[in-house]
């Protein structure tokens, strides 16, 4: 058998369920995003002091809460999904489900418990820290600072209001109305001298073209220390406002130089108490003072804002902390579940692969997902599967080879068995214990054994009376070991003799141990019979030659004597006539006998032609029509119509029919045979039939005569054997020879209740 080179191993089965997160690049990207998110949160938490509280408590808080909610939902989704998967796998009794459940539980506990503890403790720290943001001394200090700052502003405001009010009363209303500045300017300058750094601006009321009340700038006096970046328009609006309202108006104008002008505008009333103008007194507050005051105020306000927004700010910090915790928790949970999957999935795949290999799928391969030990394990599994596949293929090839050889051996065995069963030689095999192993068909037929003989000791089987002559042969076999024993044995079975050429050989193994024996039996009965017939034919030929030659001179001499003594006396003539008559008669009888011998000896080979046997039987029996008409004897025909043609020599088969019918007539007592003892009419029945299974045409001649003793049946067909006490005894011998030369057989059997049946079987054409 030619073995092909082993095929290349099949490629690993790709995992269709491989997810994007199995890609290391995606994992790195997710990790980077996570780190960025955590860094952003840490940055945010470190910059909360720089973020306006309102922004922190509104936008940031809302955003963080939305992120927290999303993370919480993600965490729940991840947990519920994976726990459901673990539960389902356990319910389905999936491989390594318990191991994975334990691993997931351990990893989840490692992730969740510390995170929850950190969250709880961190929340408590935030809550307690928020309580420490505010303290009474700080509050009092900041409030006092703010009061001082606001009082400074208020004092300046009151001072400007006082001056403006005093100027409004002092300045003459009519001069203001007329715009005569002679009396006004000294008053304004005098007032200015009382101010450290300030400015006095005077306006008079006018009516605008559209009829609206308006103010007109009249004069201004200012300290030399006053920064020049003040804007008069602001004083214009404040004057107009005071004029319109008829009361003092206050304002604070921040200067670009850093200081502030604290202003008060006071209306100037005439005698009718009508506002005819307005005076605006502004005091300059130094920039440094303003900054300090504003700082004090801002510090107080910031502190108050913290107090006001304490709750949402605390919530913001909690939200930040919660976000960080949830991010870590989600990441740790997912990472734990991912690791559990990464650990258990190769193992599960290995289990699935082992099951597939166990189920005969030797082409099953796993795709290594990692280059670590698990990957090496998968590679080893694939190598094992490949080697198993190769071994299985070799085994399969060996099995097929063995099967072919077994089939061949089986065929040979059956062929030998068939031959043994079909051969005419009987074969019996014995084991080393002397028990019969096999008996072929010929042996069964020759020895009359059944299948029950197999397995029994040969000595038991052969102890049957008719088989006992074989026992010495078997015993001699064991005694002589390898040397074979050959004997000619005659068995008497069913009233006939069977001549067997028996050979027995002991079988020994290579080590010399006895393995059994084989008993071979050849039926040599036909051979012996043929030898006898041949001997008789030789005798017949010699008899015919030696006896017939002197018969004619004897007969001629007798007739000469008869003619010579024709004239002799009556007594002499009577003696001669009687003697010569007897000689001639006996010579004629001897001639007939010699002719039969000659015919037996010179019987030619048949000239086979297709012949209708029924027609041949009819033609032959027609010869007996005249002979048997007078007596009781009756010849019946039972000819089966439609017989196939038979290749035969019509003359020889006709002689067979005549001989068998003549024998029957003789057995019944001749043509005038008496009625049978049972009152039956002597009858000869000639029948034909066809055995389509055996392909044989049968010719059966039956009489109801006295029959043939069983001991004489085999001898019937021997030459020169006759039960009639007369004749040559060659009739049935010739019949057997003719039938045998036609490839047929003849058998004799008893008829019921009496008589003989001769059955001739001839092969159909």
């Amino acid at each position, binding site marked *: 058998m030619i073995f092909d080179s082993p095929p290349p191993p099949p490629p690993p089965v790709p995992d269709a369920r491989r997810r994007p997160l199995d890609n290391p690049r995606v994992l790195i990207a997710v990790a980077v995003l996570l780190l960025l998110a955590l860094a952003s949160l840490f940055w945010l938490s470190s910059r909360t002091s720089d973020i306006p509280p309102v922004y922190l408590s509104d936008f940031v808080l809302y955003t963080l809460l939305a992120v927290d909610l999303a993370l919480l939902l993600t965490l729940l989704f991840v947990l519920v999904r994976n726990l459901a998967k673990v539960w389902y796998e356990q319910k389905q009794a999936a491989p390594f489900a318990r191991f994975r459940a334990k691993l997931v539980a351990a990893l989840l506990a490692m992730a969740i418990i510390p995170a929850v503890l950190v969250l709880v403790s961190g929340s408590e720290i935030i*809550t307690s820290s928020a309580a420490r943001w505010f303290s009474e001394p700080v509050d009092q200090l900041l409030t006092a600072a703010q009061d001082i700052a606001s009082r400074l502003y208020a004092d300046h405001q009151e001072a400007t209001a006082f001056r403006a009010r005093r100027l409004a009363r002092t300045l003459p209303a009519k001069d203001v109305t007329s715009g005569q500045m002679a009396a006004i300017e000294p008053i304004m300058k005098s007032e200015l001298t009382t101010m450290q750094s300030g400015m006095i601006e005077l306006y008079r009321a006018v009516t605008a073209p559209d009829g609206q009340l308006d103010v007109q700038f009249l004069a201004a006096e200012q300290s030399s220390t006053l920064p020049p970046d003040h804007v008069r328009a602001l004083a214009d609006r404040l004057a107009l406002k005071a004029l319109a309202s008829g009361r003092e108006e206050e304002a604070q104008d921040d200067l670009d130089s850093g200081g502030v002008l604290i202003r008060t505008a006071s209306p100037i009333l005439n005698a009718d108490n009508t506002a005819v103008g307005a005076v605006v007194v502004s005091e300059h507050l130094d920039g440094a003072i303003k900054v300090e005051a504003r700082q004090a105020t801002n510090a107080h306000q910031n502190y108050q804002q913290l107090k006001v927004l304490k709750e949402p700010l605390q919530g913001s910090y909690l939200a930040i902390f919660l976000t960080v915790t949830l991010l870590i928790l989600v990441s740790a949970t997912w990472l734990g579940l991912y690791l559990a999957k990464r650990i258990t999935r190769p193992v599960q795949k290995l289990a699935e692969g082992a099951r597939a290999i166990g189920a005969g799928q030797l082409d099953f391969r796993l795709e290594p997902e990692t280059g670590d030990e698990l990957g090496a394990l998968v590679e080893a599994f694939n190598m094992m599967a490949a080697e198993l596949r190769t071994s299985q293929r070799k085994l399969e090839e060996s099995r097929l080879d063995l099967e072919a050889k077994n089939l061949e051996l089986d065929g040979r065995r059956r062929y030998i068995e068939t031959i043994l069963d079909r051969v005419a030689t009987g074969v019996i095999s014995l084991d080393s214990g002397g028990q019969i192993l096999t008996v072929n068909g010929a042996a069964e037929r020759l020895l009359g054994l059944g299948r029950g003989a197999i397995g029994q000791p040969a000595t038991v089987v052969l102890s049957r009376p008719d088989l006992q002559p074989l026992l010495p042969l078997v015993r001699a076999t064991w005694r002589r070991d390898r040397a074979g024993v050959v004997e000619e044995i005659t068995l008497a079975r069913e009233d006939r003799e069977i001549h067997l050429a028996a050979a027995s050989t002991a079988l020994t193994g290579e080590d010399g141990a006895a393995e059994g024996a084989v008993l071979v039996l050849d039926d040599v009965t036909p051979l012996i019979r043929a030898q006898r017939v041949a001997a008789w034919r030789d005798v017949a030929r010699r008899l015919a030659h030696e006896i017939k030659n002197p018969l004619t001179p004897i007969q001629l001499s007798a007739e000469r004597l008869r003619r010579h003594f024709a004239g002799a006396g009556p007594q002499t003539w009577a003696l001669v006539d009687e003697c010569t008559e007897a000689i001639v008669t006996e010579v004629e009888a001897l001639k007939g006998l010699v002719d039969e011998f000659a015919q037996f000896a010179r019987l030619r080979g048949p000239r086979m032609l297709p012949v209708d046997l029924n027609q041949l039987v009819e033609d032959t029996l027609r010869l007996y029509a005249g002979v048997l008409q007078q007596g009781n004897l009756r010849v019946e025909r039972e000819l089966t119509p439609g017989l196939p043609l038979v290749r035969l020599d019509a003359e020889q088969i006709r002689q067979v029919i005549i001989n068998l019918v003549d024998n029957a007539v003789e057995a019944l007592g001749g043509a005038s045979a008496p009625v049978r003892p049972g009152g039956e009419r002597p009858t000869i029945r000639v029948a034909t039939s066809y055995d389509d299974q055996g392909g044989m045409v049968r010719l059966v001649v039956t009489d109801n005569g006295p029959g043939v003793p069983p001991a004489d049946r085999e001898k019937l067909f021997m030459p020169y054997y006759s039960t009639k006490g007369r004749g040559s005894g060659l009739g049935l011998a010739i019949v057997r020879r003719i039938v045998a030369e036609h490839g047929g057989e003849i058998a004799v059997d008893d008829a019921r209740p009496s008589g003989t049946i001769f059955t001739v079987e001839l092969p159909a054409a």
Partner: protein
Amino acid sequence: MTRRTALALVGLAVIGGVAAAGSADINVTPVVTEGKVVASFTAPGAFSDDAREVVKSGLLLTFTYGVELRRPSAVWFDRTVAETTVAASVKFDSLTGIYQVSKLRDGRVVWSERTDKEDEVGGWMTAFDQIALDPTEALESNADYYVRVHLKISPRRTFSFWPWGRDDGSGRKDFTFIR
């Protein structure tokens, strides 16, 4: 874990509900004039002590009012026919003691005033007069409508894990539109 921490973790969500339960009522007065609807409303309780504290701290306090003209429906959601947003904000300068109050409509400043009187601030922050509601479709005669006003105050002084969709005050007034 202390009781205070527990409250911080668990009970903060309830605070929003408590705050919502304490929201101010808004008195709404719709007026139909020449086929148009104008609404005036006041929220007397909105400028509360909490609001005053916020203002005093120097934070910009904003009252944002959503004003909606709606058509009620028995089988489906009520339909909004017209809506507008007005707001009032106040900023207090504790150095000068001056309140700067502004009113806005649809994001534009429509009025501004300074004062040193807190009572005036409260009035300006909680009262709006003659807010015109321009419907997107002609109002149906003899049909029922209502004007709904809801208030949101910024910044909040409370914290809730679910801060979305919570009003600090609301009011509603039903009327039948008669042309």
